[in-house]
């Protein structure tokens, strides 16, 4: 029988899912012209696993509601709240609200943390492959690893389009490989073009656990490259962003 996936990990812990709670935005950081990070303090904070997400719910005066999910960017060591990094989608409904309306001190309704598959639980070695804002849950893993197990082999391969699209630019160190697919900053002597087999090989994480996150097209291509690099399909976890938000 094609039964449950072979799991390299112990069974998931039975955590109580979060209830809706009203958090307070305490800091907003502009990461790129299209991307901002929101620090939200929570009255019922609980530690998350790197890779988990929160649901955000907006309610209009007339009772109309819109909900979306956003990955957590901050390490669970930053207690009491979470950081959500939100890409502004022009035809979206929730992300433009965050970008154009929300200011420090505003209240927002959230619940989480949710789901326990696209999460890092300390396995090694780890290959992270992100496209655009797909880097958000991966940065949560990278940040948490840097603070808890800095010697654990984990490498990020990160693809962006334009010179001004780099999220978390000041945190990309030697454990991150960055490539620009359209235009790179002036004087850039690093990688250009789409992620390819060479760049995956350069990351130097041989047959570990891979997390691939980005748009559907990105994930299709990148997960195939990771497969081609000899990874077991069961050790490649993907998360795809839909076209709307």
């Amino acid at each position, binding site marked *: *029988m*094609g*039964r*449950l*996936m*072979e799991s390299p990990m112990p*069974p*998931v812990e*039975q955590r*109580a*899912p979060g209830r*809706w709670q*009203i958090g307070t935005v305490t800091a907003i950081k502009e990461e790129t012209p299209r991307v901002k990070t929101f620090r939200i303090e929570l009255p019922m904070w609980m530690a998350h696993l790197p890779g988990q997400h929160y*649901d955000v*719910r*907006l*309610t*209009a*005066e*007339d009772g*109309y*509601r*819109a*909900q*979306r*999910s956003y990955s957590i960017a901050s390490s669970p060591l930053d207690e009491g709240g979470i950081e959500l990094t939100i890409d502004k989608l022009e035809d*979206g*409904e929730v992300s*433009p*609200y965050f970008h154009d*309306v929300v200011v420090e001190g*505003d*209240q*927002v*309704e959230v619940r989480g943390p*949710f*789901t*326990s*598959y*696209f999460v890092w639980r300390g396995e090694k070695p780890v290959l992270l492959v992100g496209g655009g804002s797909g880097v958000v849950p991966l940065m949560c893993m990278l940040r948490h690893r840097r603070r808890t197990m800095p010697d654990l082999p984990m490498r990020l391969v990160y693809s962006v389009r334009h010179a001004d699209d780099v999220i978390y630019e000041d945190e990309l160190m030697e454990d991150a490989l960055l490539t620009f697919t359209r235009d790179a900053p002036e004087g850039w002597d690093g990688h250009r073009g789409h992620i390819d087999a060479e760049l995956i090989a350069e990351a130097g994480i041989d047959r570990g656990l891979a997390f691939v996150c980005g748009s*559907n097209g990105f994930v*299709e291509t990148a*997960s*195939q490259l*990771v*497969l081609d690099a000899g990874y077991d*399909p*069961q050790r*490649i*976890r*993907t998360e*795809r962003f*839909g*076209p*709307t938000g």
Partner: protein
Amino acid sequence: MNGFVSRGFTPRRQTPEELADRLPPGQYAESGWPVLTAGPTPDVPTDEWSFRIDGMVGEPKEWSWEEFHHLPFETITKDIHCVTKWSKFDANFGGVSMDVLLDQVEPLDAYAMFYAYGGYTTNLPIEEISDGKAWVVTEYDGEPLPREHGGPARMLVPHLYFWKSAKWVHGMTVMDHDEPGFWEQNGYNNHGDPWKEERYWGD
């Protein structure tokens, strides 16, 4: 519920009135068809594909691609609802009703675990897949079902959130007890009724 209002939030994406009562709570209407998959997209050639029903049944059965296409085929137009908040109205599929398949095996117990190429699983009680509620589909809009959407064949169980509609479906095991499948073990609700907003554990 709690009277909370998001300061300065005005809806941008109004669903037309005639469709509003088809949109479950917390969902928005999407005209495209987003892809969500936990791992790489499996490649299953149709000459290697089969659908089987095993476990607690009178007689286990397996249909090859060709045998499957000799079964009564129907077109199905349904609204589909993904737990990641999008809904798609009037999605058009072609496939075989689970009633046709179950008729040929005589299930002896009340629960099923669906399994897919690539290792995905999802659990459904037999009553949730009987009486015109579920199909094994191989076509979308009259064309072969695209691979990224589960081709060559996927489940269609449109009255539940779409993770219950296993892509790249390979078969089901009839069981005498319920057991959580892949997403059901990883935080999503065991049942998944979009009208009750059964998204996560405990909802």
